[in-house]
């Protein structure tokens, strides 16, 4: 068809604006931007979020809780939206992350992963800090939406990992009431009216699964109940040192055995049922 190149040319010819036109619009745009920013700033100043004297900031809450939750936590506490930009800038400064680093090439999905044992222990320690015991639902290290649980899925549905943040993947996607088990590590809205001490010592997490011999695949040292998506914790969004060396292999239980005792499987429950004799009539 001979007419189409002409049409394209016509479109191209129409695109360049007359000189001066772009400049005028640029000035207008800048003015609008400055105006919006200034108005926004003053609205911001008078809004309840910042103007209220009674509203505790996240730091003042921490002060009022006698025992700041997990002061040594490796988990990065999430930030109120109001403080977001300041904190983000600070975090980049602290970690010496140039913005250019974010433009890294995507990882090779089949690259062999080396496990750093000390990083694994660090990760286990920070894991422990947000749980009462191994097997307890982790507390949430950031403010949550008090009513809606759908927001949880945005980050934790598939899990995500950036240069500075990691959102773990939910290992049990079929439960729909997240806040039933996962509560904020620290409330953001009120002062603690009293603080009670508690001496509960929780069950420690195992540091590794046992192997039948050197080189054998380790057995799973924890219950797989509600943790049936192995890649939630051992996949690409895993904490440092917790990854599988071979996350592309999809059938974990092919090589890694589960513990029927930890999984509360029936035959371990025999003491509860011993008194009922099960008599089988072969002739029936």
């Amino acid at each position, binding site marked *: 068809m001979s007419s189409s190149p002409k049409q394209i040319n016509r479109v191209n010819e129409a695109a360049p604006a007359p000189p001066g036109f772009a400049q005028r619009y640029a000035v207008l745009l800048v003015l609008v931007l400055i105006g919006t920013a200034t108005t926004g700033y003053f609205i911001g100043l008078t809004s*309840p*979020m910042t103007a*209220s*004297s*009674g*509203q*505790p900031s996240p730091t003042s809450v921490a002060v009022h809780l006698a025992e700041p*939750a997990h002061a040594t936590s490796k988990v990065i506490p999430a930030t109120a939206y109001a403080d977001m930009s300041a904190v983000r800038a600070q975090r980049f400064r602290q970690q010496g992350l140039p913005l250019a680093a974010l433009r890294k090439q995507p990882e090779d999905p089949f690259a062999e992963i080396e496990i750093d044992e000390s990083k694994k222990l660090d990760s286990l320690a920070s894991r422990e800090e947000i749980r*009462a*015991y191994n*097997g*307890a*639902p982790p*507390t949430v290290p950031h403010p949550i939406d*008090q*009513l809606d649980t759908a927001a949880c899925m945005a980050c934790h549905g598939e899990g995500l990992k950036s240069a500075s943040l990691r959102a773990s993947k939910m290992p049990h996607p*079929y*439960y*729909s009431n997240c*806040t*039933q*088990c*996962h*509560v*904020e*590590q*620290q*409330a953001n*809205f*009120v*002062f*603690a*009216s*009293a*603080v*009670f001490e*508690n001496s*509960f*010592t*929780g*069950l420690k997490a*195992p540091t590794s699964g046992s192997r*039948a011999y050197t080189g054998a695949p380790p057995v799973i*040292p924890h*219950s797989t*109940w*509600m943790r049936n998506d192995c890649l939630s914790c051992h996949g690409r969004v895993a904490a440092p040192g917790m990854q599988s060396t071979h996350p592309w292999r999809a059938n974990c239980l092919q090589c890694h055995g589960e*513990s*029927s*005792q930890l*999984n*509360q499987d029936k*035959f*371990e429950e*025999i*003491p*509860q*049922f011993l*008194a*009922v004799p099960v008599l089988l009539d072969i002739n029936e």
Partner: protein
Amino acid sequence: MQQDRRSFIRSTAMSAATAIASGTGAFSLPILNAAETSSVEWNKAPCRFCGTGCHVQVGVENGKVVAVAGDKDAEVNKGLLCVKGYHVGSALYGKDRLTQPLLRRGDKYEEITWDQALDVIADRIEGAPERFAFYGSGQWTIPEGYAAQKFMKGGLANNHIDPNARLCMASAVTGFLATYGVDEPAGCYDDLDRCDVLIMWGNNPAEMHPVLFSRVIDRRSRGEKIELIDIGTRRTRTTEQCQHYLEMKGHGDVAIALGIAHLLIKNDAYDHQFVESFCNFKSPDPENPNLHGKSISFEEYKQSLEPYTPEYVEELSGVPAEKIRMLADLFANPDIRITSLWCMGMNQHTMGTAINSLVHGVHLLSGHFGKPGDAPTSLTGQPSACGTVREVGTLAHALPGGRVVANPEHRQQCEAFWNLPAGTINPQPGYHTVEMWEQFCTPSDEGGDIDTIWVQVTNPGQTLPNLRKLFNAKEGLEDKFLIVSDVYPTATTRLADLILPSAMWVEKNGVVGNSERRTQQWFKMVEPPGDARDDTWQTLAVARRLFDRGYAGMSDKDGRFLFEVVDETGSPVPAWQWEHYYDVNFDKHLFEEYRQFSRLKHKDLAPYDEYVKARGMRWPVVEQPDGNWEETRFRFVEKDDPYVKAGTGIQFYHSSTKDDRAQLWFHPYEPPAEVPDETYPLMMTTGRVLEHWHSGSMTRRIPELSRAMPSAYVEMNPDDARDRDIRNGDLVSIRSRRGELQLQAWLNGRGRPPRGTVFVPFFDETLLINELTLDAVDPFSKQPDYKKSAVEIVKV
């Protein structure tokens, strides 16, 4: 001993199981020897907290609870728990556990021995047994409640025993009695797996019964369609999961139920066959207000409903008329299954008996009853409100097994079971909760005729309504004496004269009964701290002290101790001595004795050992010809309930009219006892939050829970806040006719009340909202209304 024996059985059984699995005793898999888990012993127990009755697996290491897991074999929760359940183990280890009996000397406490403490109590009782009262709990285990019941009504011939459950589900009881002639739900949690529509009447199960709520909404994740309807006074986490939110004013539920019945009749959409076969009609009898009311004809019933048009209901309740029509259309549809759930919203209500009866009535009228998924089901808030209070009957008017003190036959039966001389039991009902505390807080010379109250397993200093009148007024009354058995210092121990340290949860044996008639048992797994001891033992030891002093009531008619337990050789075990208490399973002895009472109302319980094997069983549990004990899921329904006559389909065999029919009630709408006015323009409701349970005495000591919810607050509508120049987080003063309290305001927070309504949770012992609540009670159940107090709020 017990522990060792059980561990032994367990390990023997386990090796047997391994042998079976592998075919040889010599072969062992490395997996079972994983070093990390070998020292933890796991055992079953129902959760300590709410009435749902989830089973947990408790992990014990070196004599301490170290972990908790949802029990996968438990039908109630199927391996899932809520955040409280997962952290229930920490409740044992608050640093300020009470470990020694404490006696008040002026404004200080002196540590005393148990022996001294028993003498103090015995002295108080002997001095004036008729002025002594026992205030118990829906957290009492069944043996604890049964021991207290027998001690009071059998031993002291004194009926002043009432539980905190009076504040919690008394109106549910009167609703069931008025309708079916016998207490407790006909349906069970299985209905939640089958219903197409779930209506929550003033109920927030997403926070209060989360495991049950998940049981419903997780069905959606599996692709099922369920319609959820929230009828409430504020937006909650439950609302967010519901297709319909019907926002009502106080007592709007009464109007809504009447409106549905009105439309079912007007549209001729009620279930003719069900109503003609199984129902009578009743209305309250103003001459003689009781649960029998007066019989009315269907015509009279129809006429009474005439005024409750959708438009009039909208006026009364604030719910749009079209939503009332929507509800009526759902009930008119025989092809769907409808379950109603309710808890404190309908029970803490000055029309509590009425609204309970009306909701049962809507289900009966529409025939949405008796099929799986078609059920009016009331939930309980405490782990054994059903088991201990409703079944053991630890109420001022009741005797075990659905009996009442006013009935001579019932008294006679109890005297026979207890081997007491005829005429021992007092026929006059004792004081119900509100009366009991009113009498206690009234000076003796002004007629207050209760001198001593013994409180076990509850916290009235925080949970009674109108605290200044019903609790705080005790302060300074020299001749009044308060005994408190508890595990932590509480708002109640503030005014206690004698504090007794108690064992809790898996520090003792126990049996409880949950909301769906399920009786659950557990064994002691760890030692209580210091000198803390079982509540049953405390009651037993006081009884024995009185017996030793020659108090006649503590012997049966053959002169034997009321709580005598004999060993295999037939000689009495001195279980009242703490070091011998666990020589026998005292719980089992009490339970086996109590079990005999359960037949009268067909709430048959199985032998104790059956519950050891199960994750609870729902009564009636009936022995089968093959020797197995079988539970009942749906009561009054043929094929499921063994007591229903074949061919009847449905039989209300405890009908109060003795004709196997349920009573379908009409109650006219009445406004709340207190309505907002110019001085107090806001309506305050109170309640719980997900993280805290009851008065918070346990959950406040669990770091994960208290950090997530560190203090009470007042939820306000942003418009009401703006009118008062209140911003999020501001300290405000909330005032009612009865008291004043300063709290932080929370706007757009956990719950979102409409304009004119505020909400305050009651878990915080430093911010006692019950100093503001109203002490008006339901005329039948005597349960107070905590949900509708008029208040005003000003910025501080």
